[in-house]
């Protein structure tokens, strides 16, 4: 949805941390994205290559690890993975009141530098 701005944020965060650690070049940026963030990875890869062009991250790999949506049932306490953003029902007991364990996170996990 907002891939260009978000990709710029990823790049800014990566460069800031690399500079802070005295690195001259970034070779890889590892991002974790929950399935609920619904980002379009193709656009993000395209923008990343373009935006990184004249920074120390030029030519770096953007690796996006998708984090599954996991819910915990408030009735039986069991955790389950669900496929998509939808109404969540506990597959174990059919209870509707569930809480989200993961799936909404979106952060730069680490960077590989030289």
């Amino acid at each position, binding site marked *: 949805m*907002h891939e260009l701005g*978000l990709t710029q944020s990823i790049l800014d965060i990566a460069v800031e941390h690399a500079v802070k650690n005295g690195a001259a070049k970034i070779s890889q940026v590892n991002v974790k994205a929950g399935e609920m963030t619904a980002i379009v990875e193709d656009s993000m890869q395209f923008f990343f290559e373009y935006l990184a062009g004249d920074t120390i991250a030029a030519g770096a790999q953007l690796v996006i690890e998708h984090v599954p949506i996991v819910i915990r049932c408030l009735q039986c306490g069991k955790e389950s993975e669900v496929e998509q953003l939808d109404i969540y029902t506990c597959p174990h007991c059919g209870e509707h009141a569930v809480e989200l364990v993961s799936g909404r996170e979106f952060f730069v996990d*680490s*960077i590989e530098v030289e």
Partner: protein
Amino acid sequence: MEIKVLESIFAANENLADKNAEVFKEKGIFAINLMSSPGAGKTSFILETARRLSGHHKAAVIEGDIASKVDAEKVREHGIETVQINTGGACHLEANMIQKSLEYLDLTGVDLLIIENVGNLVCPADFVLGESARVVILSVPEGDDKPLKYPTIFSSCEVLIINKIDMLALSDFSMERLEDTVRKLNPNVNVIPLSCRTGEGFDAWMGWLEDKLSGALGL
């Protein structure tokens, strides 16, 4: 060499939102992030709310639209302190826009700030503004299936206003089906059916709001 970063990609917006929240807290202002699709009745809802509060609470409004001053002019006509944000194409408000617009608002004596987000059921849900509460309006003509189609926004609000209930007889909208669907997404949401046009059901909303305003003022 690997460097651990662990920094949220939404961090820039989240940090500014925290700053806005601090300003609201310091000034004793209850801030509402009001979201809905275009035409659900956000502006009518704001006007009726401010009218009913007048005399004992003071409201200010931030109007978020892609273009035009139509809404701000309508609200200002009623003597309400208002600032218009034109996002110039952006489909939602972000925390920095709120921070900037606060400079243009006279918040003296204000205890309620209503931020009317851009009419959109998708993007505004992902961007916190520093609000004290999120209120979503769904209107009867839009249909009772909207929570299924836009789950994020319906799962993140404290209050869901069902507006235009004076049109219920003209539609297949089922309040029961709506409540059933939305509670599966958001078990604790307050569903308040009302009509800004006839005023029916508005007392329930004002009751919720007055409680929150007392809390914000520490009464």
